[in-house]
């Protein structure tokens, strides 16, 4: 009995002389692995300097948490782009699927993870803010973050061609999307089940909110005809209007306000000491 306790005490005593494994976080920060999935940024096209997005809406279609709103349009040159591109970081789960499916390699997961703000509306970013996010990433790493179809900047051995090594004819904006604009409406507060049923039975519009995309499909398939309810009106709205409603309700955030780390930034240089992660450091003696 005493032997075991003494063994335990000896072990804790030995740990007094081992190296600390924690970091002084706001002052120093660990280096992330290249694939780290932070906030989604937009890649700048190296020729035009604008975003590479063509507004196809695949990212919004695949997003499991409905955090992207895309309305396609054309720019002054006549190339397709996103007229409205909204990214709601407050809803984002950082799964990286948008980046994976982007056919234009226009999105990238940056290493930005300090995303706290005082106002939730600041978490809604537009294309410009997302561009600045990836710019900041480029500043930090000092290299272009154009990488083919990977959820994050990667160090994977790639057989893929870099985007700018591709045939110039297929580089940007050449694929026309036939997809209607996808997007969700702003969300508010849930209402009671009864009220909800009453409203949609009476055909009253629900100003905010979305139904599952297969709402009508489910009803047609599984409900008898008399108990089916019409599709609430807001779904029939044009996506443009939807985005406008959304913009009206929410201010678009400024990425420069999403900088919680600057409060800890002692030298005022906007840079923190990055600590390289060692290999099994904790086992070594101090």
């Amino acid at each position, binding site marked *: 009995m005493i032997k075991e306790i003494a063994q335990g005490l000896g072990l804790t005593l030995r740990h007094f002389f081992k190296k600390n494994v924690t970091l002084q976080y706001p002052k120093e920060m660990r280096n992330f692995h290249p694939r780290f999935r932070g906030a989604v940024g937009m890649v700048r096209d190296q020729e035009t300097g604008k975003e590479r997005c063509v507004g196809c809406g695949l990212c919004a279609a695949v997003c499991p948490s409905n955090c992207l709103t895309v309305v396609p349009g054309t720019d002054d040159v006549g190339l397709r782009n996103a007229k409205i591109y909204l990214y709601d970081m407050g809803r984002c789960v950082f799964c990286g699927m948008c980046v994976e499916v982007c056919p234009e390699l226009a999105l990238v997961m940056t290493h930005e993870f300090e995303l706290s703000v005082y106002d939730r509306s600041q978490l809604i970013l537009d294309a410009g803010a997302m561009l600045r996010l990836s710019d900041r990433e480029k500043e930090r790493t000092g290299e272009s973050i154009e990488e083919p179809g990977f959820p994050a900047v990667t160090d994977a051995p790639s057989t893929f061609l870099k985007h700018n090594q591709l045939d110039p004819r297929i580089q940007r904006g050449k694929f026309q999307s036939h997809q209607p604009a996808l997007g969700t409406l702003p969300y*508010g*507060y849930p209402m009671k089940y009864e009220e909800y049923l009453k409203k949609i039975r009476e055909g009253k519009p*629900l100003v905010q909110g979305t*139904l*599952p995309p297969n709402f009508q499909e489910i009803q047609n*398939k599984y*409900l008898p005809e008399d108990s089916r309810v019409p599709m609430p009106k807001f779904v029939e709205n044009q996506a443009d209007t939807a985005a406008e409603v959304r913009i009206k309700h929410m201010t678009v955030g400024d990425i420069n306000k999403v900088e919680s780390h600057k409060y800890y930034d002692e030298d005022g240089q906007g840079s923190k000491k990055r600590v390289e992660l060692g290999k099994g450091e904790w086992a070594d003696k101090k």
Partner: protein
Amino acid sequence: MKESLQVVAQKLQEKFGGNILGITEFRDEVTVRVKKTIWFEVHQFLRDDPDCAFNMMIDETAADYPLRDERFDVISHLLSLSKRHRFRVKASTSEKIPSLCPVWKTANWLERETYDMFGIIYEGHPDLRRILMAENWEGFPLRKDYPTEGYDI
């Protein structure tokens, strides 16, 4: 179909005859559909028969098919530790089904959850309360006609 499961299927046919509505196989998994009247008996038989020996209940759940007369499918997954085979039993019901708590204690919470989510009433359940949703919750969330989203201004 595994040999041991063929024996099980055969025995079930012998024992319950017309109350077995069909035995299907998909992806090496055997499903037997029974009438809800023998729901309890079939499980007791499957547990006690030495050739079946399904001593463990893995799961009990339900699925909602709102267009049918008996809209719910009650589904149980069984496992035999000694025979190393699995089995699935299904029965349709409109609302009520006998509880399996006397057969397996596992069924207690699994049935409570199914009641909570679908509103299926398990007769003979010792403690049929809501378990995951709040006690005063309206509606049964996993029914197909339950709205997924609904928002007010």
